[in-house]
């Protein structure tokens, strides 16, 4: 790990004034002057320890007053401060009552220790866990290199990689919590360097490698996430989340799904289905949603929706197993709504 200075930001304005780049920009075109944000510090430290990045200054935003609150209003929904930890979301009674899918996603992310340290903003802005991307020995597309190592049909270790939208870099986004936030139609509030506020839907927050290979989200040089907004669910809304991992204790997601539906008896009035670890960004399966909207939820319609969700899948050499895996967790999650 290189030596760096530490800037202890006292306000949003102060933090914005003292940052000059993002971790992603610095990784893609390194300077000797980088100053970027750190909140929980887990992902930042990972990059520093691997020697992937050598910032001049870390701007600590973790202790800026007022950024660590959860507020809930029945009609408006929930506002989660950027620095709220995953553990705080996991244990907040209003989250479990109003947004079960979010509570389940958070409770299944990382370890109890990491959840005590990681912040929601850091979780959304973390980079992919693709092992080639995380290795100093592999200059991949995402680090201004000339290839995607994972894509190679023989040598590519692509078991965990994307089966959908995998025409460029085939990595998947690391946040399993984003899957639930996408299904819940959450949005991200960002304060820019000009001190203007932007509100961006989770869907537009993430950037696919086809749009821009150097980044995974829209955050620019001087963009600080200040809060996440989760709109109030309409009456009779049910939600569920399932994350499939390789071992029981804890692990990164192989496939995860969040479903949020407004029900009238067994009829599905409206529904969102979001998939994580399927594509380079968390994605909604609009096609599967269309099949269920206005229809009865039963074994037949649910199975049809799951099949439809996987029609767009184009697996790589070693991740074909993800297709039946996704079908099965989509069916299981939808069954929980009946």
């Amino acid at each position, binding site marked *: 790990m290189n030596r760096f200075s530490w800037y*202890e930001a006292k306000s949003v304005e102060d933090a914005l004034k*003292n940052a000059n780049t993002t971790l992603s920009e610095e990784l893609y075109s390194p300077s000797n002057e980088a100053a970027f944000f750190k909140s929980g*510090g887990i992902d930042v430290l990972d990059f520093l320890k691997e020697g992937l990045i050598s910032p001049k200054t870390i701007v600590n935003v973790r202790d800026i007053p007022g950024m660590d609150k959860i507020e809930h209003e029945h009609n408006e929904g929930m506002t989660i401060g950027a620095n709220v930890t995953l553990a705080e979301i996991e244990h907040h009674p209003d989250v479990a009552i109003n947004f079960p899918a979010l509570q389940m996603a958070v409770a299944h992310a990382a370890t109890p220790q990491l959840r005590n340290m990681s912040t929601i903003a850091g979780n959304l802005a973390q980079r992919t866990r693709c092992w080639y991307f995380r290795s100093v020995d592999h200059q991949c597309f995402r680090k201004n290199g000339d290839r995607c190592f994972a894509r190679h049909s023989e040598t590519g270790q692509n078991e965990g990689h994307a089966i959908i939208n995998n025409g460029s870099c085939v990595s998947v986004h690391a946040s399993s919590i984003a899957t639930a936030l996408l299904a819940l139609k959450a949005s991200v509030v960002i304060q820019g360097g000009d001190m203007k506020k932007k509100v961006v839907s989770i869907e537009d927050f993430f950037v696919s490698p086809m749009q821009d290979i150097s980044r995974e989200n829209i955050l620019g040089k001087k963009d600080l996430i200040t809060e996440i907004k989760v709109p109030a669910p309409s009456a009779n809304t049910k939600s569920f989340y399932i994350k499939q991992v390789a071992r029981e204790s804890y692990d990164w997601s192989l496939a995860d799904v969040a479903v949020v539906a407004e029900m009238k008896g067994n009829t599905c009035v409206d529904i969102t289905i979001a998939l994580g670890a399927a594509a380079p960004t968390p994605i909604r399966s609009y096609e599967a949603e269309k099949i269920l909207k206005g229809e009865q939820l039963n074994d037949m319609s649910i199975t049809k929706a799951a099949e439809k969700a996987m029609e767009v899948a184009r697996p790589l050499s070693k991740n074909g197993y993800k297709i039946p895996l996704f079908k099965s967790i989509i069916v299981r999650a939808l069954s929980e709504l009946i």
Partner: protein
Amino acid sequence: MKNDKDKSSKNAGKGNLSRRGFLRGAGLTTAGTVMLNSSVLAFESQPATGKAFGPDAVTIEMKVNGELKSLIVEPRTTLATALRDHLGLTGTKVVCDRGACSACTVWLDGRPVNSCMTLALDVGSRPVETIEGLAEGNELHPLQEAFIEHDASQCGYCTPGMIMSAAHLLKTNPNPTLQDVKKATRGNLCRCGTYPHVFKATLAAAKKMK
């Protein structure tokens, strides 16, 4: 574990030249020299609003196991390094150094965290509890006793972290189920496979502590 602890505290007391004692001494001397330059530097670069530190070492205060300690660290120093190399509290182990095994678990503000992924400057005024702070004088914590009784430690590398996770559970839930114990130690990897013994020991300790 008990022997190891006794030995190292004896060495520390008498200034015996054990490997650990030597490393501890050497560490302090280098850091001390750096500090002279840095306190001047840190002062000059201090802007009106926030505060800048480093990259040279700065003096910080940290409350560890109930005692206020003064130490000299660079901004890149992790809490694990501060505890082990600067304060000589080598009970905390570093195994993966990436937040993936929880061997380095300590309590920060009463909650288990990975000390390998926490920077020392991030601790601030929040209290730190390490495995060394669990026993009361010569009296082991009931969970430590239970680990010995149930043979819950093999090579011992995961043990301090495992105990800090399980002890936190017992502090917050006096009637844990097997499922609760599994959940609390879910991040703690043990390559020797002591899990069933760890679970038994924790449940036994819970009973004893009632």
